[in-house]
């Protein structure tokens, strides 16, 4: 556990943080300081950047387990920071913490590759819970990947460590973090139906996503990458009204 500089005790009784390194990008100095103190009290290693550009640079080199990112920032807005990181292949989890709370903004943030979205003002306890949830999800992914890093199905192959897959036609695909998380969840529960709610819960956290339709889009993207024909699904099956099902040993139809 990180040294507790504030003298506070953890709110959770036991330490869930494992000293995870968190970067807070926030231009309101009082708010940034308050968040950092609370994260530190929970046992995280927290640091602050006060504008978009400094934040982006820090995130590039920082090896953080999570970014808490404001949207309205000097020099570079939060959406752009998140997008640029994703374009560079940096899949560090991002929690948007912003005054902009329109549904469009939430959707935009999540589409730019964010993991969760909270609007200001927020409840301290909720922030800490969500931070813990994101870190738990990503630890689950890493642990699960460690057990079985590569999955072969038909002529396809997926390496969850590098997010890279190869389809039967030999084409290499680089999956996004979210696509990999969904795939991982389906693969872990191979042969079982995974409900939309469960996907929402594990991959996004319960409240972040406005519509389960978006999951359909993610499944569609996985199908486009790995299914030989667009019309028939051999590996990624939809169970209508329930959820999705992954089979790696699909027989030819």
């Amino acid at each position, binding site marked *: 556990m990180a040294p507790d500089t504030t003298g506070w005790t953890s709110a959770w009784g036991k330490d869930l943080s494992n000293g995870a390194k968190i970067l807070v990008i926030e231009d309101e100095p*009082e*708010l940034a300081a308050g968040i950092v103190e609370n994260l530190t009290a929970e046992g995280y290693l927290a640091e602050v950047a006060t504008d978009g550009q400094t934040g982006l640079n820090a995130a590039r080199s920082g090896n953080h387990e999570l970014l808490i990112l404001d949207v*309205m920032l000097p020099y570079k*807005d939060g959406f752009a920071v998140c997008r640029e990181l994703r374009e560079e292949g940096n899949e560090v989890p991002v929690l948007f913490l912003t005054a*902009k709370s329109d549904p469009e903004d939430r959707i935009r943030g999540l589409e730019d590759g964010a993991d969760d979205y909270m609007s200001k003002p*927020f409840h301290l306890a909720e922030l800490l819970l969500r931070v813990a949830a994101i870190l738990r999800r990503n630890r689950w992914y890493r642990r699960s990947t460690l057990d079985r890093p590569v999955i072969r199905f038909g002529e396809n192959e997926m390496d969850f460590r590098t997010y890279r897959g190869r389809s039967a036609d030999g084409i290499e695909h680089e999956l996004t973090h979210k696509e990999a998380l969904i795939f991982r969840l389906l693969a872990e529960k191979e042969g079982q139906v995974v409900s939309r709610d469960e996907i929402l819960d594990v991959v996004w956290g319960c409240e972040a996503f406005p519509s389960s339709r978006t999951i359909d889009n993610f499944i569609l993207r996985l199908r486009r990458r790995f299914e030989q024909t667009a019309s028939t699904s051999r590996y990624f099956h939809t169970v209508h009204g329930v959820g999705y099902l992954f089979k790696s040993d699909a027989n030819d139809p």
Partner: protein
Amino acid sequence: MIDQWLFSGEVQGMLQETHRRSLDVAKVMLEQGVATNDVAKIFPALSVSEDGNTIRVKPTIIETLTAERDSRRNRYAWEGGFFLIVLCAAIGVLWRTVRTEVRLRQRQRNFVTAVTHELKSPLASVRLSAETLQYRENDPETRERLIERLLNSLDRMDATVSNILDTTQIDEGKLALEPQTVMLSPCIYEIVNSLETVAENAGVKMEIAADNGLTVYADHLALTVVLRNLIANGIDAAAGVENATVTIKANKADSKTVVEVSDNGRGFHSTEGEKLFEKFYRLGNEIRREGRGTGLGLYIARSLVAESGGGLSAHSDGPGRGALFRATWPRIQQDGRPPGVKT
């Protein structure tokens, strides 16, 4: 209009054709032995020579027809042209109105976003500090710090709300100002002192070159608001650049008292110089924030300077090349009142 134009041509052509036909008929009638006079009576548009050998359409008729066509065409051209001009003018006016409306909407949206941010961020900070106080066991020192942070955030919210209210009052002409003779230098030093911590945290140096004995005839509080706004803007703009400096100069020039606040910070495009004073205008776009603010500060500042008969202008050589804000007030005359002050 073009239809009308062609139509009058067509009508004229048809009339000429009719005359040509009557000419043919008249020829036949003459050949048949009808008296010249009778033919002339039946076809008044034709002129028949006494001997009945030559027959033609009266030249006056053709002239009349051509003249009539031309006059019609002339009229259509004028009317059409006139309507065209009116139409263009109407489209122009409409386009301008729509464009102004769109710009205003855009700026109001920016304003709402800015106000949302300016209120919600400190509000989030207030809530966080309060919850931390409630939620954790804090030692007295931490508690002190949290309360200070909470109060700072409340001050910021208060400032934002005041700005919005001031703007409303300016717009409704309800500002209750009490102009008086104010000593300029002490006023400047007071503001600079109060902004010392802010400047220090931002890594900005402040330099003052104010002539002694300068006076301004203005509302004291309004003057403080204006100067504070300009200096705080300068600090905000200069923060982060090398050798960040805000320079405040005050002197006499011609018949005016001049205060110049310059910085070597972010600057702006020369085209933005005037827009800065428009309500809700902010540098950057809706979400990329070039500094704090609601886009009201300079609008308020200019309105307040104008109330005391002065002017406020902005200049920059371009982005990244610093900015200069120049406020002028009319010099106080012998009778204690400057010229041009609203009384």
